[in-house]
């Protein structure tokens, strides 16, 4: 009887805060670009793209940055800023358990920022360039990262400034090899999130990890690594016996098509009417995918790549 009571209490507690957050996020979904928009964008030049995006939800960020930057760089930084503002907005209006789950998901961007800072410091990138590539949803965290970018003179100093973070040990022990360090940070993130996440997030993470592992295997085999060595770089801790995500049987196992399938399935979750994290997760993925698509189009156009090739890599 007591167990039943605890279970029911947990159930109701876990579902609190989702009705408001999910509906608001669902309303925001209508502002995302549609398939028709992408078809128009593929036919435009970089300048036309800037003007077109300046009339969409990216207007505020693009006009703010237009005083300092122009062309591809302006759009790139505008996209980053817009993604950051979207995360900030959703995190600020989310409530109770929904907020907790959103925080867990956004931890991914905290790890992304650490990687960006370390990569930037290693390659002696300018401070403003590193800062414009950061995507931070939390003001305190933003100040913390800005402080590292401003005051750390090199890679080692940046690592030292992260000494109070739970992943410091990973940074310290893999300082020699940035590739391994980034892999270890990803592993840390997935292991961290899986402990507290709701089944929807856990399921998505597990699917994402499977695809990442597949990608790593293909890359490592192309580089001539032995199977035993490849095993070291795979992310473990997720049940791999469950049904695998497969593309259509006639298609060969292609990482791009697998990734497209994973994203499309996850994005459709925005329309699930349940008090779970699924709609917010779907929206986050749809927004990140939109930014990725726009970046692909802009970079492709800038480097005179054929529209058909760009289109093949878009997830629409």
């Amino acid at each position, binding site marked *: 009887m007591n167990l039943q009571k605890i279970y029911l209490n947990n159930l109701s507690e876990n579902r609190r805060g989702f*009705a*408001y*957050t*999910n*509906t*608001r996020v669902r*309303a*925001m979904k*209508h502002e995302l670009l549609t398939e028709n928009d992408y078809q128009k964008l593929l036919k435009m030049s970089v300048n036309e793209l800037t003007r077109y995006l300046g009339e969409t939800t990216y207007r505020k960020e693009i006009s703010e940055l237009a005083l300092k930057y122009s062309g591809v760089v302006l759009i790139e930084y505008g996209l980053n800023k817009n993604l950051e503002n979207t995360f900030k907005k959703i995190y600020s*209006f989310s409530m109770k358990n929904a907020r907790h789950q959103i925080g867990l998901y956004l931890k991914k961007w905290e790890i992304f920022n650490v990687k960006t800072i370390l990569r930037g410091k290693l390659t002696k990138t300018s401070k403003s360039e590193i800062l414009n590539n950061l995507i931070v949803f939390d003001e305190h965290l933003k100040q913390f990262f800005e402080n590292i970018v401003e005051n750390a003179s090199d890679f080692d100093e940046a690592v030292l400034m992260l000494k109070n973070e739970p992943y410091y040990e990973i940074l310290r022990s893999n300082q020699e090899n940035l590739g391994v360090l980034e892999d270890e940070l990803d592993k840390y993130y997935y292991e961290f999130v899986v402990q507290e996440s709701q089944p929807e997030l856990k399921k998505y993470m597990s699917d994402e990890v499977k695809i990442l592992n597949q990608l790593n295997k293909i890359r490592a085999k192309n580089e001539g690594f032995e199977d035993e060595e490849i095993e070291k770089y795979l992310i473990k801790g997720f049940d791999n016996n469950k049904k695998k995500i497969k593309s259509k049987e006639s298609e060969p196992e292609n990482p791009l098509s697998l990734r497209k399938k994973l994203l499309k399935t996850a994005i459709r979750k925005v329309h699930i009417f349940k008090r779970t994290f699924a709609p917010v997760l779907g929206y986050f993925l749809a927004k990140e995918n939109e930014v990725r698509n726009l970046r692909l189009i802009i970079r492709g156009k800038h480097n005179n790549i054929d529209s058909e090739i760009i289109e093949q890599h878009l997830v629409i």
Partner: protein
Amino acid sequence: MVELELGMVAFAAAFAIGISAYSAAKAETEIGTAALGALAENEKLFVPSLILMVIPETIVIFGLVTSILIIGLAG
């Protein structure tokens, strides 16, 4: 004995309106918070939100009619 029967009728009527009012309140909690979320993003959704908010109220009317019928039939 008559008092017990009267009590049972009163209890049945109260139960009918009580349960329906509670259910409507639960439904309106969810619809209200969701409607606020939608309105925060798009003000044009005010009328559809208001209509959706009112729909659960019909449950209370059913409850009220049922309790009146119980009292009426009991005489």
